[in-house]
């Protein structure tokens, strides 16, 4: 009973040898991934990682702090436009542009967080929705943002552009490694943060803001901090996204995108970093790849596509992605409110007690 415990165990990144082993194995897998899969598929993984960063940030706000945002496409847009424009007009190196764009996005997050001090639930949803729409329209109207025509991203230069110190990264595979490093870093940082003082304050606000305040948590600081942090993640994700797709316009960042982001977090599991990672991966796969795979099914594929064209859509396009998305959402909300993270926890329990 009176053993001297090492309390660092409680907050360690890898809570056990098993976790460490699988984490390292997973990282090795990720870093060698381009060796096993065709390079045109790497594009999908790049999108997935961008969404992972965004979903982790959104989960900090929604899942951990209990605030809602229907405007994250707006922060995503600020990151995408900010990074590209800083590189085009100020010729900044990529990483510097990315961080500055992230900080600009964080600043907007802070501003949006201010009304959140008074607004709750549906009212906050409307306010953030308004923000997302506003950003989309402002961008569409100003020529410096490329207007409705959109903009193409410049070469991804990690060094000083047009100088001997230029270091241009080209091709999906190289971009993959860049994004992978940033993603791992940001996921680990989020996880650390959520296990320490700031994360606990967020959770306290989510579960009982009056009790949090009575225990000394400054609601103004921590609520706006959560918005700013979440917006920073969205901004960085947006900045990377621009270089993955290499072209975007204002309509890329529409309301549906904000909703899909929320779906990732809800499906993955509110208040869990791992959940956000899983949710972003699944939803992105469904959106970008499912349709193609369904079409390639022998016999069934053609029938399903016809069925979808005929019955499931208004504009005559097959849309399994959206239908599957809707059904999964329904299923999660009804059967597993903890999302994929909840399923994961149950699986772990099952294997621990197996074969009993």
């Amino acid at each position, binding site marked *: *009973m009176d053993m001297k*415990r*090492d*309390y*660092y165990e*409680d*907050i360690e990144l890898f809570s056990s040898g098993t976790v460490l082993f699988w984490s390292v194995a997973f990282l090795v897998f990720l870093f060698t991934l381009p060796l096993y899969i065709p390079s045109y598929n790497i594009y999908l993984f790049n999108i997935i990682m961008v969404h992972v960063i965004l979903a982790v940030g959104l989960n900090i706000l929604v899942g951990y702090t209990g605030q809602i945002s229907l405007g994250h496409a707006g922060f995503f847009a600020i990151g995408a436009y900010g990074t590209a424009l800083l590189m085009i007009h100020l010729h900044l190196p990529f990483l510097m542009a990315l961080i500055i764009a992230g900080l600009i996005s964080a600043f907007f997050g802070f501003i949006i967080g201010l009304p959140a001090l008074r607004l709750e639930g549906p009212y906050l949803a409307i306010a953030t929705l308004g923000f997302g729409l506003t950003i989309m329209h402002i961008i569409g109207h100003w020529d410096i943002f490329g207007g409705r025509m959109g903009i193409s991203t410049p070469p991804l230069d990690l060094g000083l552009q047009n100088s001997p110190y230029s270091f241009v990264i080209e091709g999906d595979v190289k971009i993959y490694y860049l994004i992978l490093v940033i993603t791992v870093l940001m996921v680990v*940082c*989020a996880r*650390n*943060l959520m296990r*320490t*003082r*700031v*994360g*606990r*304050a967020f*959770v*306290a606000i*989510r*579960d*009982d803001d*009056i*009790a*949090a*305040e*009575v*225990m*000394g*948590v*400054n*609601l103004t600081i921590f609520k706006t*901090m959560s918005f700013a*942090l979440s917006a920073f993640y969205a901004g960085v994700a947006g900045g990377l996204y621009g270089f993955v797709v290499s072209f975007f316009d204002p309509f890329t960042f529409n309301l549906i995108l904000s909703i899909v982001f929320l779906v990732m977090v809800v499906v993955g599991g509110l*208040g869990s970093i791992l959940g956000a990672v899983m949710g972003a991966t699944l939803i992105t796969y469904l959106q970008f790849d499912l349709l193609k795979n369904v079409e390639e099914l022998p016999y069934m594929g053609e029938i399903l596509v016809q069925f979808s064209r005929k019955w499931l859509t208004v504009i005559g396009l097959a849309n399994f992605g959206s239908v599957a998305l809707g059904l999964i959402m329904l299923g999660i909300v009804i059967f597993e409110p903890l999302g994929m993270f909840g399923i994961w926890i149950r699986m772990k329990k099952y294997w621990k007690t197996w074969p009993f």
Partner: protein
Amino acid sequence: MAHFKVENLGISFGGIRAVDNVSFEVKKNSIFSIIGPNGSGKTTIFNMISGIYKPDSGRVVLEGEDMVGLRPDMIARKGIARTFQNIQLFGNATVMDNLMLGRHIHMKTGIIGGAFMWGKWSGTAREEVKNREIVEHIVDFLELQSVRDQFVSSLPYGKRKLVELGRALALEPKVLLLDEPSAGMNTEEKDDLRIWIKDIQEDYQVTILLIEHDMNMVMGISDRILAINQGVEIIEDVPSEVQKHPDVIAAYLGEEE
């Protein structure tokens, strides 16, 4: 100078005077109880002390400093902690995390420090470990060892009351406000609680304000007692005197028979 005092405290809700002109002084490291029938304004007094309600008259003075007008989190930093009548814990967090939130004001880690907690010797990890040790003493003290890593929402009522007490203790308050801590507990739990409250007073050197309906406990452990009815003071004195007051007998002690 009184350690803690309340002067002419009053508040109205929609024209109804919930608390009217209440004053009392509390000696350092003593137990001061507030009794009165339901709806008499006891919890409202706590809410004014902790800054949740802003009184429309009067002062709340801790070590010479007026608390009225400060936000609840600032009042917590001045050293006033509390528990709630209907338990207000962070339900989807573990017991340990709830208690650690009690250390919030004693810790400094911000976004950068928290995010970049690289390894055991980083400043953040050291601060974390130091505070976890402090909290672990409270876990031992309140015998919460067995539920340490459980989610609060899964605990029985009596345990949750204790976690809330532990969370307030973790803040290392100068003044601790306990709002009906024994409500919903069985006799055995109540006996334990009574001993713990005494221990807290002695070991942790805390001044305790207690709202409690269990007259055995109140009369047994209080140094002084304030009895109120409909927001107005009836009597404020030592237990033996309060016990004799006809209104108190009518309200409490009589009906027990």
